[in-house]
């Protein structure tokens, strides 16, 4: 299937990309990994008049920890994270898990984290992960750069705080401390499918073994990724136990408000939300050496 015709503009710098986007406004789309956009264009569901290709902007191709944050540039690929030298460290286990479950292994070699956040598919992976890890997105707008917390960034299905003519530059994950681990749990019908349900979890422990803080989020459980605040509240300050995990999982199941589709009914997906959060918490704690 062949997309409708469009004008192609290649940007070599963020300034150039920004200028193009400002000029074409709503008529233009940013082309990063393109792994969601191009199939949509092939079906002619998406038919932007202008594509601004940012893949040639070397200044956006980075993946580096700096001053307490891991910054991932707009054209860093999913596979760059999967293959990063430090990704095996326990503190990055949430990202590590997710980087091996997004789409399929070939799509991950083009697909980008920032692009996935901007696409904000209700069943996306990076949205739930970024939310659990309390990441921020750097957006360039008319009035300069601004940093938006992911909670605020994800507005509604396929809608974010990146306005017309704006460009998302990077996503920043806070570098977790030594006593932090995570887990990404996803049920999919097959590799490459969107999640039937997914849960992202990140847990930090105090020295005494109580939970200092937790990120518990769900994908495919609402119009876009959602935070299970009740679970996070329940966990914080407590000593991990089977009952505590059960309570957090139940909260996740209650909070989940999925749509029925070919992947499953509302009831089944709500069940999975609980199961996956329970498994994710158990795995994150196991990674921290906690035996339940």
């Amino acid at each position: 299937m062949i997309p409708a015709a469009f004008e192609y503009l290649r940007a070599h710098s963020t300034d150039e990309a920004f200028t193009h986007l400002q000029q074409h406004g709503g008529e233009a789309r940013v082309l990063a990994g393109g792994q969601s956009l191009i199939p949509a264009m092939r079906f002619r569901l998406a038919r932007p008049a202008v594509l601004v290709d940012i893949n040639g902007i070397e200044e956006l191709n980075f993946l580096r920890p700096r001053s307490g944050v891991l910054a991932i540039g707009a054209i860093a690929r999913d596979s760059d994270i999967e293959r990063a030298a430090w990704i095996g460290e326990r503190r990055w286990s949430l990202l590590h898990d997710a980087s091996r479950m997004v789409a399929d292994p070939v799509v991950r070699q083009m697909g980008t984290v920032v692009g996935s956040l901007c696409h904000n598919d209700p069943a996306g992976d990076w949205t739930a992960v970024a939310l659990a890890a309390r990441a921020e997105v750097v957006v360039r707008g008319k009035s300069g750069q601004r940093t938006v917390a992911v909670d605020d960034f994800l507005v509604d299905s396929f809608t974010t705080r990146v306005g017309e003519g704006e460009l998302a530059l990077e996503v920043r994950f806070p570098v977790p401390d030594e006593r932090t681990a995570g887990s990404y749990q996803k049920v999919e019908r097959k590799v490459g499918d969107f999640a039937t349900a997914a849960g992202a979890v990140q847990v930090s422990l105090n020295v005494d073994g109580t939970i200092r803080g937790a990120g518990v989020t769900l994908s495919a459980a609402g119009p876009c990724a959602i935070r299970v605040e009740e679970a996070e509240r329940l966990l914080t300050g407590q000593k991990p136990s089977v009952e505590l995990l059960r309570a957090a999982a139940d909260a996740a199941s209650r909070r989940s408000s999925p749509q029925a589709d070919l992947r499953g009914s509302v009831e089944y997906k709500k069940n999975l939300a609980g199961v996956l959060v329970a498994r994710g918490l158990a795995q994150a704690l196991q990674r921290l050496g906690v035996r339940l």
Partner: protein
Amino acid sequence: MKVNVQVNGVPYERDVEPRTLLAYFLREACGLTGTHVGCDTSSCGCCVVVMDGSRAVKSCTLFAVQADGHALLTVEGLAEGGKLHPLQQGFWDQHGLQCGYCTPGMLLASYALLKHNPNPNETEIREALAGNLCRCTGYQNIVKAVQQAARSNANAGTSQ
């Protein structure tokens, strides 16, 4: 729009519409029909080629204009000097193909895998090839083919 690419070490300059997908560019503008198209949703992997030495990409989910200035490897470029690449040899020896339609994509996805992981086990191979569908082989002989190639590379002391 002008596109300049190196495909299998050979420069091609072609003028195409921006909407031309890389897979069709290779097949129709360059005449390299070994790269196949099997779906419209980036699901099947029949179109996988390697970009810039080690990155496997689905050429039906990339515009040809995006490949401008890049180096591409397609199935036609795997054999060197009339000698089959160890992966090609592995697929042949282990009966890793039947209808042959998925084979080019499988070969190139495997090529990128071995670049990053020269000695993968069965689980790692199955994970790395999960972006490529095969309807004929049931994958098992493809796994064996990749393992044979990895061994052959190790014996040759290279990681080609």
